[in-house]
């Protein structure tokens, strides 16, 4: 016996489908049929068959060993609090033992299937995927009966009002989701930050206020509003931080090319910019001291601090918003006010929330690219 043939005579009438652009190969070759079956070593030599059998059993025994070892590892290699080495050992031995248990069954089973089970190929006939002519006719008949008995096509008013009712039904779902977020206006909530007049600039995350004298030339500070530290995590600490995070840098005064109207926003070469990228909102955390460039590590938008953080490269379009700063009587850096424009990624309503006092960096400048 070469191959089991399961072919049953087809009940379907042959449907002639359009062949389209396919070329008719009427003088094509004839299929030579299945090649003769090639017996395996295990089919020919009883000794090899017995050896394969032993190998399969060995793999299954190894699997049992693996399962037992896994339990042993769980108990014998415990995690000792504070000892990272014990975590690693637990992970390694437990995992390898479980892997052995699984692989033993898998490899043994595969060996059994490939070496010992019948390898004769079986042929099964395909039929067209469509139902038989009889069942297709019956299906049409059932739909027609259904239509007749219900009057679905005849009673058009019933049908159309039903369709209308079901179509409108999902609409309440839209309003149902409004309370996913608080009642406040979405745009108002992100248009302003915690910075107010006189708010001290403080170090992130300690909240220590920063004196202007401590900011040496070439240094960059990660800054938060001083009062942020009084906020608990459940009172929106991270939310406010995500809006108010600022980078503070001191440049040689002659390097700063300040736009008219923004001269008063820096203090003795110290400038503060929003840390949140105007592209999609990653923190712009990398400061290059030599070029005075700020680089966003997410998508490589690059901002030039000497020219009001205008974009010199990357997918961001707008410069980072500048925080106008000065010093108070004790020499601490303070904000003059909030940002004059919304911080972070652009959004549809952004222009409605630009402060009248905002001084844009001229459009022509932002177009220049390095």
């Amino acid at each position: 016996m070469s191959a089991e043939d399961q072919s049953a005579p087809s009940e379907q009438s042959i449907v002639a489908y359009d062949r389209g652009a396919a070329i008719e190969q009427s003088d094509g070759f004839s299929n030579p049929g299945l090649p003769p079956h090639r017996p395996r070593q295990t089919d020919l030599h009883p000794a090899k068959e017995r050896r394969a059998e032993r190998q399969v059993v060995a793999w299954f025994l190894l699997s049992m060993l693996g399962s037992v070892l896994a339990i042993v590892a769980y108990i014998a290699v415990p995690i000792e609090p504070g000892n990272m080495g014990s975590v690693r050992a637990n992970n390694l031995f437990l995992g390898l033992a479980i892997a052995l248990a699984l692989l033993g069954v898998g490899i043994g089973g595969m060996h059994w299937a490939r070496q010992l089970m019948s390898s004769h190929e079986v042929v099964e006939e395909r039929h067209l995927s469509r139902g038989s002519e009889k069942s297709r006719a019956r299906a049409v008949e059932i739909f027609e009966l259904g239509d007749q008995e219900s009057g679905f096509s005849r009673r058009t008013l019933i049908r159309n009002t039903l369709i209308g009712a079901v179509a409108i039904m999902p609409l309440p779902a839209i309003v149902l989701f409004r309370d996913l977020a608080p009642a406040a206006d979405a745009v108002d909530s992100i248009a302003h930050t915690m910075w107010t007049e006189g708010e001290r600039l403080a170090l992130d995350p300690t909240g220590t206020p920063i004196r202007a004298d401590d900011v040496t030339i070439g240094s960059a500070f990660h800054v938060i509003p001083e009062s942020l530290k009084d906020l608990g995590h459940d009172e929106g600490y991270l939310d406010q931080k995500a809006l108010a995070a600022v980078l503070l840098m001191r440049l040689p005064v002659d390097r700063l090319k300040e736009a008219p109207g923004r001269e008063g926003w820096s203090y003795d070469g110290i400038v503060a910019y929003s840390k949140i990228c105007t592209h999609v909102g990653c923190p712009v955390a990398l400061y290059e001291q030599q070029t005075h460039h700020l680089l966003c590590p997410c998508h490589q938008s690059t901002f030039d601090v000497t020219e009001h953080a205008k974009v010199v490269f990357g997918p961001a379009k707008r410069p980072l918003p500048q925080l106008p700063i000065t010093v108070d009587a004790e020499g601490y850096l303070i904000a003059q006010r909030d940002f004059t424009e919304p911080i972070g990624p652009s959004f549809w309503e952004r222009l409605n929330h630009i402060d009248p006092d905002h001084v844009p960096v001229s459009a022509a400048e932002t177009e220049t690219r390095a």
Partner: protein
Amino acid sequence: MTATTARPSLTAKASNYLDERTSMSTLVATLGRKVFPDHWSFMLGEIILYSFVAILLSGTFLTFFFEPSMTEVFYDGSYAPLKGLAMSAAYASALDISFDIRGGLLMRQLHHWSALLFIAAIGLHMLRVFFTGAFRKPREINWVVGFILFILALAEGFTGYSLPDDLLSGNGLAIINGMVKGIPIVGTWISYLLFGGVFPGDDIVPRLFVLHIMLLPALVIAFIGIHLVLMVINKHTQFAGPGKTNDNVVGAPIMPLFAAKAGSFFFIVFGALVAIASTFTILPLWEYGPYDPSPVSAGTQPDWYIGFADGALRLMPGWESEILGWTVSWNILIPIAVLGLFIVLAMVYPFIEQWITGDKREHHIAERPRNNPTRTAIGAAGVWFYAIMWAAASSDLIATHFRLNVFHVTYALQAMLIVGTVIVYWLTKRIAIGLQKKDREILLHGYESGRIVRRPGGEFVEVHQPLDEYEAWKLKAYESYAPVMVRPNAKGKITPATHLRAALTRWFFEDRVSPVTPRELEVAKQHDDH
């Protein structure tokens, strides 16, 4: 069967009990000896299924310990460097799973590695189906079902990546927040509702958790069910070979050989995943610290399967418009549109190709990619396009590793995305046609045997050996298409659609290599015999 004794065995009694209540024998009779063809590439789909089981099992274990909450806690576990730090309960419980629960780290790593294998196998499986034309009638619907599974898998990956609430996952969410805000009109509000207020808020982790462990897995299981049922109904494709035709399936019957192989393979895949999870660290989330909107580390990378989307964002120039007082972020919208178009085109490709060929017949023979050069070239161009976007997600790492300027790397990738895709299309088509010509040559004149013979006239020739009929059949048996002529339709009219179709068939099939005919073979034989 072995039951030859008069007394029915326990198995026989149990089977009878079941059948009398469920009619199980009908199922066994129809499916028991169903045939599955054998080819290594058909194994990719199995890997998807088995890694999904590993995901479900390890994921269930994780849910017993993971706390999907953004409530503030002060870490008090055994990882000393983070002790006393304020963090979300989600991140703290992820640390506890890693450091204080035996087998917890193993299950977390198994879950992550299985998810990566799941998505990788989906990608390879889709490529196999695409390049062999296995999406053709009657399998177009199953291609779409599979594509939906691919998208669901990406969604599962992303929601899972976001759950531990470490610095990396939080940054991923920050990017999503920025992208959502870039959507015109509704973007600001969608972000607000999604995050339960201002980003990051306190709600996103529990919300994504519900999607990750309930809604998305339920959809994945449902679509896997549809995918498999349709596969059983359509039967598996097979490669052309001796004895294999468009009207039969040749291979192993489910009982016992296929079931044994598939069942064993499940344990091999599962076992290999556990072995990897126990020896290779993945996502050492303790190194990143809890999410904070302010710090971010250089070389930030998404998981590789999201890379193509991140890369698209990186390659886009910074375009943004202000129209009538509203802000339109092209730097976000265009990447989203390009990715969307790419995905939709791939999803509807079977319907496009069928409209072009006009071939309404069922196809069960998996084509060799070279025998459909244009499709293969389209696929290769798509792979290139995807790969460049994917590489772009690491543009900064490429720059630091090869000591290049990151700006130049970006410009180079932009050029490769647009020019490279065209070149790859053209090159692949030429290679496929070249391979077809080689097949023809081998069929007509045999393969080079390496035996050099000196002819009586002193001439040295290499003897060409003809293929045996079984090998030859693999090269002969393929379908060929030709461009169609513009012909008036039934109403005697030539519509623009007819012109378009004719043009597209020319594009597809103009420089085709037709299969060898018996007459050609005969002529070649006579010629060689001289």
